């Protein structure tokens, strides 16, 4: 029997498993879609989709559930990336939020996120009739994610029932569903934050410049550094933006995502910083802080 000339590394195995998942979900769905949040995990996911179907283009569009409150740099990057991948980009903005002008300043982070993102996502899936949606969530992000399956069935009301999950054995995924049910697929389930960074480095995947340190105008609120991205940022009395060298570990809506002080301006420096870091990735996400099991609650309501 011939033996292979090289061993597969853990990144090779993760890549291969993700490609298998993406192909499997696509083969067994009518109208799949890949959620694209412009973040680094999304970037990795799109890269894997291109690999899965090469030399063809991925046979599904990208969907950005927009809040209109992303950093400006993210919008520029988003349009460039979709064009480069040769994939159609659909952008959905919850029309109700547009009408009411929902924003994090007047309505608070909870309402802002619920309406733009959770409701917006449900609307978009229903509007386009997508029956399978790829998301970039990883099991290492948060405790309740650690137990979610790779293929997660959602009721026609988009709810997740943690007590009724299908067992996933070997690499066999049961993708069958009833009319109205949809499926969320997480190809990066088994990746860690470090794996994502190492893979971005190895593959040369472009990322939004905000992940790298640069002097940026920020104000300090409740111990968090908030970047003043444009004139929509309302300053509190006495607040004076100051220029500091900062970067973002995670990218959400700009007033809701805190920056961290950093001088890591290259990928290896970012990775080195990450390895030494002492706070977890979602720390910068203000919505997670309300209660320690808040992610599980959001997921049951249909959040990704």
């Amino acid at each position, binding site marked *: *029997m*011939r*033996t292979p*000339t090289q*061993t*597969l*590394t*853990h990144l*090779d*195995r*993760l*890549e*291969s498993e993700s490609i*298998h998942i993406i*192909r*499997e979900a*696509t*083969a067994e769905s009518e109208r799949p879609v890949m959620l694209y949040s412009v973040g680094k995990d999304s970037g990795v996911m799109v890269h894997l989709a*291109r*690999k*899965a179907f*090469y*030399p*063809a*283009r991925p046979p599904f569009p990208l969907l950005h559930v927009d809040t209109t409150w992303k950093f400006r740099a993210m919008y520029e990057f988003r349009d460039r990336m979709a064009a480069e991948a040769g994939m159609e980009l659909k952008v959905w903005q919850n029309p109700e939020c547009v009408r009411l002008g929902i924003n994090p300043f007047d309505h608070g982070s909870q309402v802002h996120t619920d309406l733009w993102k959770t409701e917006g996502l449900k609307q978009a899936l229903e509007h386009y009739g997508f029956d399978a949606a790829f998301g970039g969530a990883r*099991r*290492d992000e948060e*405790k*309740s*994610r*650690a*137990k979610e399956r790779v293929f997660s069935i959602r009721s026609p009301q988009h709810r997740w029932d*943690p007590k009724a999950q*299908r*067992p*996933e*054995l*070997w*690499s*066999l995924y*049961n993708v069958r*569903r*009833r009319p109205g049910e949809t499926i969320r697929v997480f190809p990066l*389930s*088994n990746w*860690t934050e*470090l*794996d994502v960074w*190492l893979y971005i480095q190895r593959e040369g995947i472009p990322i939004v410049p905000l992940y790298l340190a640069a002097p940026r105008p920020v104000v300090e609120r409740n111990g968090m550094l908030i970047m003043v991205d444009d004139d929509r940022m309302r300053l509190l009395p006495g607040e004076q933006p100051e220029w500091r060298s900062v970067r973002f570990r995670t990218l959400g809506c700009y007033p809701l995502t805190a920056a961290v002080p950093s001088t890591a301006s290259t990928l*290896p420096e970012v*990775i*080195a910083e990450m*390895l*030494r870091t*002492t*706070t*977890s990735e979602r720390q910068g996400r203000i919505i997670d802080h309300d209660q*320690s*099991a808040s992610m*599980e609650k959001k997921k049951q309501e249909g959040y990704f």
Partner: protein
Amino acid sequence: MPADDGSIDSDIEAYLAAHERKTLLRFITCGSVDDGKSTLIGRFLYESKLVFEDQLAALEADSKTLGTQGGELDFALLVDGLQAEREQGITIDVAYRFFSTPRRTFIVADTPGHEQYTRNMVTGASTAQLAVVLVDARKGVLTQTRRHTYLVALLGIRHLVLAVNKLDLVGYSREVFEEIESQYRRFAAEVGVDDVVCIPLSALRGDNITAPSPNTPWYEGPTLIEHLETVPVDDERQAKPFRMPVQWVNRPDPEFRGFSGLIVSGVIHPGDPVRILPSGRTSVVSRIVTFDGDLPEASAGQSVTLTLAEEIDVSRGDVIAAADSAPALADQFEAHVIWMADTEMLPGRPYLMKIGTLTVGLVIGPPKYRINVDTLEHAAAKTLTLNEIGVCNVSVDRPIPFDPYRVNRDMGGFIVIDRLSNETVGAGLLHFALRRAHNIHWQAIEVNKAAHARLKGQEPTVVWFTGLSGAGKSTIANIVERKLHEMGRHTYLLDGDNVRHGLNRDLGFTDADRVENIRRVAEVAALMVDAGLIVLVSFISPFRTERAMARERVAEGEFLEVYVDTPLAVAEARDHKGLYAKARRGELPNFTGIDSPYEPPESPELRLDTTRLSPEEAADRVIAALQERGRLG
């Protein structure tokens, strides 16, 4: 221990390059309740410096309010995710955890010790290369320890670690450790695993996790992490013959036709001869196509796209295999079946099997025996319930390529899917084929169905009457038969009560027996249709799945489902045979409508509302329906 800070700072590029080259080990932790699995994994994360300051702050707070360690750090709280189990202090599902050391990265499946969640343990074991079995030093080898060891061995794990935990609570006693070790080794040998490493430790105190403990000077073996880092997991899959189930046919343009899939075993190069299963056609690999350029070689674990020298028909579900050692094709097997659903397995019910990238119709025969996983004894069984494991004959609706599970997990492992709920209700391991597909020869019959029907001047049809007991099925079916007979049509009436006196007299009224009852009747009806007859079937037939199966036994258009729709109250009020009264008194268990469910048809060809139609009128509706469909010639 993601890194020694010095190396990150001095040469980050070199550090990253080293990290990129690490290999991956997937393992599972199992053991009884309170043996300390979650604590051990929490300890791994903590020792690997993967617990961040904010998580540590939350852990300290949680340890005081929810902890079971009297306010000391309770590592289990780091891994017990879902709210319900945090409150109950137990793990109720499989959780996947990730950590890495300078040598390897690890994916850990943390699986529950509770009896009712065996299915989750089997799930976690299915992808693991090694199992860490925990025992509490104070309790030794328990029933659950044996059960979990049996299960991981059954699922094909060949490397075991026995972690004798909580050794601090027995004063780090060497005698206690060695007694447990010898007990356990005997059992592991019984289930066929020889690679067993036993390690004395305390997950809570950190003994022998990363560093040799001063408390166990008599122990000379590796620490747990040391062993996990060095145990050889050289991929045995790569030494096996080449197999790749086709996931996707890649056709970007008429010039290119590639077959994409994950290689589950072996190695492949351009120029290698391959055989396509089930068609048996052979060809030669011309290219191994990837986004990063064509490869000179690919092996087990890689997702690739192959192109072939010849233009041959290959579709999703096919297997591309080494031409000189291709898998066998078969449609009947002996298999281990692990049941994972609250509803019991029904022998004879049509399910679906997903194996590789192929989904086929599946029927599971009655268990030959059930395995008592605590004693490994075989017990007689008619069915399998949640978490039970049995050996059964299974048959699929077409010949499929397979290898025995013990030879190739990915070519012999399957899941069982319920056709109506779409749930994954079980898993199975194929052992061997009961007959090879190429030995099946249908008796060639010259006088066929069309010939029989022509002679009778009618279109053979099954008219299937379903409804509650006392709904009026037999009354209406009898009138229909009389009228058809008067019209000179060739008919036969299969009536539930009569068939149960003969053909099916060995069957009772449990769900499993009801399924078999209907299966036999469906087969008989199909034979009669073959003989050219119009068959009237009058059976309660309470389950949709079995009625769907009966429909599938005959050709499109040959099946007419008639729902004799009588509300339960009306049928019970009629009660010609006095059965409802008996059932209400508890003298007739499993009576449809009383303590056994009736699933009404969702779209029958005909619905007869007996509260508005007389039996004569109802029979006329049936005749009209047959005429409309041209079944009466």
